[in-house]
């Protein structure tokens, strides 16, 4: 019985969200407000059980010595951020923000170096000729390599800021745009399937779990 009731609730919410496609209406408004309110609470509960409790409370209980007392730093930073509620000393909250921004900057350097820059450049070190069992196969693989290297280089040229895109640079950056557009088109087309799958999931819920037609 409970199962049936809750299935109806789910179906109602599903249809209420879909109704937005026609236009804004009270059903969507209701579902939207329920969603925002309950999800804010959901993530708060989640934060407590998966972040704060294990990383602060449990860590405090389980560790000893330096490992324990160093947790005072994040605790103080947390207090700082909440000082925003007290107008006269609200500016102290910026210290905590400064810490997070410093992290952003530090990681922005290391993560970009390690995660993107070095590996992407390394991956572009490609031979211009790939030996293979027959000539045409070789040629195919080699042409692919040429396109990869040239495409990467001209795309970088598109992002050249300090010179006007005229003459040679203009031609190169235009070639860059050609690659970028092909890439965006392909990426767009590639994603359609995953998105339709989501809709299929919802439609299946409606006709299978709710209406039992299929």
């Amino acid at each position, binding site marked *: 019985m409970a199962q049936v009731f809750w299935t109806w609730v789910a179906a109602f*919410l599903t249809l209420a969200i879909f109704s937005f496609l026609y236009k804004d209406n009270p059903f969507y408004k209701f579902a939207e407000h329920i969603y925002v309110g309950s999800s804010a609470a959901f*993530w708060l509960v989640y934060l407590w059980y998966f972040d704060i409790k294990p990383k602060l409370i449990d860590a405090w209980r389980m560790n000893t010595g330096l490992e324990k007392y160093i947790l005072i730093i994040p605790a103080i930073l947390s207090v700082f951020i909440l000082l925003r509620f007290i107008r006269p000393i609200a500016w102290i909250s910026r210290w905590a923000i400064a810490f997070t921004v410093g992290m952003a900057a530090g990681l922005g350097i290391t993560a970009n170096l390690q995660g993107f820059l070095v590996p992407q450049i390394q991956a572009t070190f490609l031979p211009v000729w790939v030996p293979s069992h027959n000539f045409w196969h070789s040629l195919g693989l080699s042409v692919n390599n040429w396109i990869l290297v040239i495409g990467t280089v001209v795309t970088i040229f598109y992002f050249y800021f300090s010179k006007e895109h005229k003459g040679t640079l203009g031609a190169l950056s235009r070639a860059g745009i050609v690659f970028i557009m092909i890439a965006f088109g392909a990426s767009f087309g590639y994603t359609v399937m995953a998105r339709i799958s989501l809709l299929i999931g919802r439609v299946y819920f409606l006709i299978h779990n709710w209406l039992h037609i299929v």
Partner: protein
Amino acid sequence: MRREVPIAITFFTGVLLVVAFFIPHEPFGSLEQRFNDWYIIVSGFAMILGLDSLLLHHWNKVSRRSQDWFHSLSLILAFFITLFWGFYSGIHTGNFLSAQSTFRKYFYLYVFVPLQATMFSLLAFFIASAAYRAFRADRFEATLLLFSAGIVMLGRVPMGNQVAPWIIGFVLLLFAFLLYSDGRKEVDSLRRALKFGGAILSLLLIYPLAWFFLKYTAATAGWIMNIPQLAAKRGIFIGIALGGIAMSLRIILGIEKTYLR
């Protein structure tokens, strides 16, 4: 004090993380992980600020009986019901998402997941309307976008190979027709000849291209994804990485300080 201390904290934190990146020795080796944990704690507490903002915003609407106040009230109720239910289940069963938790059984599976999944599934509609509206062959670049999207779409599904030749054929016929009707209006005989020639070429291309796509639509889609798509992505990634590093250096050096006023 108000300005210098934050800049100093940012500088110190940023430089420390960069230095730690090159030193496996403790305490540097695990510094990134440690800072990350701290950040998660701080941002967890910051949620209180967010909730204050959200709840006050809607409470004001309710108390002023402004438009849609009823919806604001349901937002506040939904928030507190979820919150108490979640903690209730959490305390009773050890974990708010545990197997016996009614929170998981009812709220999570019949309220939260449907809302999330349905909102997500709206993308199926939006991706169609965006494609219909935006993919117009008005400029050369836009035409490329359109063609590569079309081929990848057809290449990804069963039947794509069978349908693609018809679509290619239709598009080429259309080209031929457009070139022909343009050519008829042309006064200059050379241009007219060129346009007629183009029309004939389009017609001639129908058979070979249709044959090609009957066999290789999926392969072409794969090739576009693996070669030109990858090349452009790489270029963009390298740009983003450089820009990100430069931005980070600007922040560390205190050139960029929007966040601090």
